[in-house]
């Protein structure tokens, strides 16, 4: 065990950069690969016990989206079981349901749904609505026939204002399809920062020990840059591997150009390197820096316009977000590339934005990093001379 840990520590950067994203891709891909949320537990409350009510219940039983787990006696019981999480919805068919249908009195039905997770709630609503609409269609056709209207005419009448629907890019509304590019972007961000920030902190430690006048000249770009480029290349190879894994194993479409994917990733990593300089300037302890980096995954993905698109953001939020964090310029075009096969024109704003971000933050990050080291050095020299004076 000890030897294994030593081995992991020795090869930590490649392990973090390559194995973690691949492991998470496999894990999340397998967990989210079912396209539909089915077998949702629901309750049925049939107070009518008639042929018509049983017919509707049979439709619910036959639909794979629903799993009837209980037959309730009251709406209170259904609500209580939704509250406790035992069921996610309940169908209530009141007494006199059949009589109201036969008497054309507008029979009532009630579908209660737990809306706390709307991925579940939406499915319940969509499929219960489909069943009831189909039943309504059947009853309307019978009604029209009894009024002397010919079947062809009644069909046309009932289909008027019907809608056809097309969902582009993610026709089955698969959750993995929607989420994966964002997840991959976060894997890249987290692993890269986790590896690069400690390198910069190590260099900071070394520079701190040099005399003040040598600090600027003694930063080792020749040693640091190849290492950072090497890690950036590993990140790219790994993200390609992840894309292929999600494509082969989970049938994720890979529509876009490889060159454009490389372009947005290079710009992202350049911008992220600028951010890493700032983080390395702020923190003096590599462990604390790593802990802070771990914190960034959730807020950055929730605020980068991936889940909550830019046009829905509160006033003034988007420009600030785009100016301080580069994930917007990577997660969004990555989705456009993977799902839509976007052309350069379609992702051009992201490319320009990512380029400007890197162009600004690389030098500014380095400047902050140098200034911090110089200031630290000045403070420590002041403190030391004060202590020597006291002595």
């Amino acid at each position: 065990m000890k030897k294994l840990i030593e081995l992991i520590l020795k090869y930590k950067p490649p392990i973090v950069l390559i194995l973690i994203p691949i492991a998470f891709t496999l894990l999340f891909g397998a967990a989210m690969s079912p396209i539909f949320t089915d077998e949702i537990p629901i309750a049925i409350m049939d107070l009518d016990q008639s042929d018509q009510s049983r017919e509707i219940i049979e439709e619910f039983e036959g639909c794979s989206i629903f799993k009837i787990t209980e037959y309730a006696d009251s709406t209170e019981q259904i609500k209580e079981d939704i509250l406790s999480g035992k069921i996610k919805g309940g169908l209530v068919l009141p007494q006199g349901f059949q009589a109201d249908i036969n008497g054309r009195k507008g029979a009532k039905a009630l579908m209660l749904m737990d809306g706390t997770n709307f991925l579940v709630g939406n499915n319940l609503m969509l499929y219960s609505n489909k069943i009831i609409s189909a039943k309504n269609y059947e009853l309307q056709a019978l009604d029209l026939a009894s009024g002397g209207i010919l079947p062809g005419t009644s069909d046309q009448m009932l289909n008027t204002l019907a809608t056809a629907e097309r969902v582009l890019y993610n026709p089955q509304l698969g959750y993995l399809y929607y989420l994966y590019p964002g997840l991959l972007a976060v894997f890249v961000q987290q692993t890269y920062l986790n590896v690069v920030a400690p390198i910069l902190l190590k260099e900071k430690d070394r520079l701190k020990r040099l005399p003040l006048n040598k600090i600027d000249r003694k930063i080792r770009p020749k040693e640091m840059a190849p290492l950072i480029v090497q890690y950036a290349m590993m990140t790219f190879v790994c993200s390609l591997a992840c894309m292929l894994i999600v494509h082969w194993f989970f049938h994720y479409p890979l529509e876009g150009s490889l060159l454009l994917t490389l372009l947005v990733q290079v710009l992202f990593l350049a911008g992220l390197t600028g951010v890493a300089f700032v983080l390395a300037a702020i923190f003096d302890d590599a462990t604390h820096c790593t802990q802070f980096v771990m914190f960034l995954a959730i807020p950055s993905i929730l605020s980068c316009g991936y889940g909550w698109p830019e046009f829905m953001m509160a006033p003034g939020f988007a420009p600030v977000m785009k100016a301080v964090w580069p994930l917007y310029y990577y997660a969004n075009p990555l989705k456009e590339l993977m799902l839509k096969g976007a052309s350069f024109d379609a992702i051009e704003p992201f490319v320009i934005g990512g380029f400007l971000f890197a162009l600004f933050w690389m030098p500014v990050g380095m400047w902050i990093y140098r200034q911090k080291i110089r200031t630290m050095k000045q403070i420590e020299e002041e403190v030391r001379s004060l202590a020597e004076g006291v002595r």
Partner: protein
Amino acid sequence: MKRQFFQIFKALYLYKKRHPKRVMTFLVFIVVPLVTGLILGYEMSSDVATAIPTVVVNHDQSEFSRNLVAYVDESNYFNVVEEADNDARVEEALYNRQAYVGLIIPENFYSDMREGKAPKILTVYDGSSLAVISSSKSAMSEILLTLKAGYMIKNYEGKLDIAPAEVRNHAIPIDATYRLLYNPTRNFRNFILPGMLAALIQVGIACMGAERASENRGKGLAFTEHLKMILKWGSLGAVSISLTLIEQYLLFDMPYKGTLLGGIVLTVLFSCVIFALGYLVGSILSDRMFASQVAAVLVLPASILGGYTWPALAMPTFFQWLAKIIPFYYYGNRIRDLCLKDLAFRHLIPDIRIMLIFIAVELVLLYFIKKKEVLA
């Protein structure tokens, strides 16, 4: 000015150097969660997708179809940004993110409708954005269904000899009511933030656990000292989670409808479970940074594998079982429930019981690890 700035910086730097633990605790438990809550709460101020950019192609140009377009545009959900003259433009607008929804009304739509030819309206959605499509699909079907019901009623009046008062019952034989309980408006912020903020803080709690364990390695502390540590830091983590929820409640109108006592008990237990997990990792791994990373990596995927957004019941069986050994599975969904549902303490008893089992298992493991450490 420059000197003053230097003095402030110096004071901060020296304080951070002297009290790194205090500064990090303040950062992890107070600053990061509250700032994140503020950022995300403000970002999602509109709660649901509104004014969704929509492109319309109206080949019909009858008064009826123009009214339909106006009706869509006037609804809160849609904002008709363009009236195009060809169908391909809809796909192009969706491809370029200029619109998220397209509505295509065919030629002779109204006259065909009057002649009973059943023309079809085509709605096109961009499926790549979940928050938008979940609002747009239901809002568009609601608009079209309302329109259809009105048209059907008129049709029935004309074709069947039925009294106006009864027409509706003929046109809609089963009048179903769909009640989306607890989050009827599909408020995205209330759906995502309670658990996601807790998921964020749990990363900090786990890292703190790993770091405290690293500090205490080889000190030969009595087991009760470790227990006190877990309780103290677990409670701090619970304070952090509570503060973010209070912030959402006060500043962004996030509801909290459930039992307060139950919420506190569950939050403290959850936080202790996560801290103890980090503490276990830090007790096993000697490298402080590596321990922090491992602890964070263990809890980070919980927000997905714990079924908070993509429900566990939709996952393959193996992952349903896996979710059951993830503490966040019990906490994330419950904290959202506590915000949105009027849960009583009794509803939380099964989750509290599970948290106690988690803690018991962790303590047994910790006991053996520490015993081995002392023997070594």
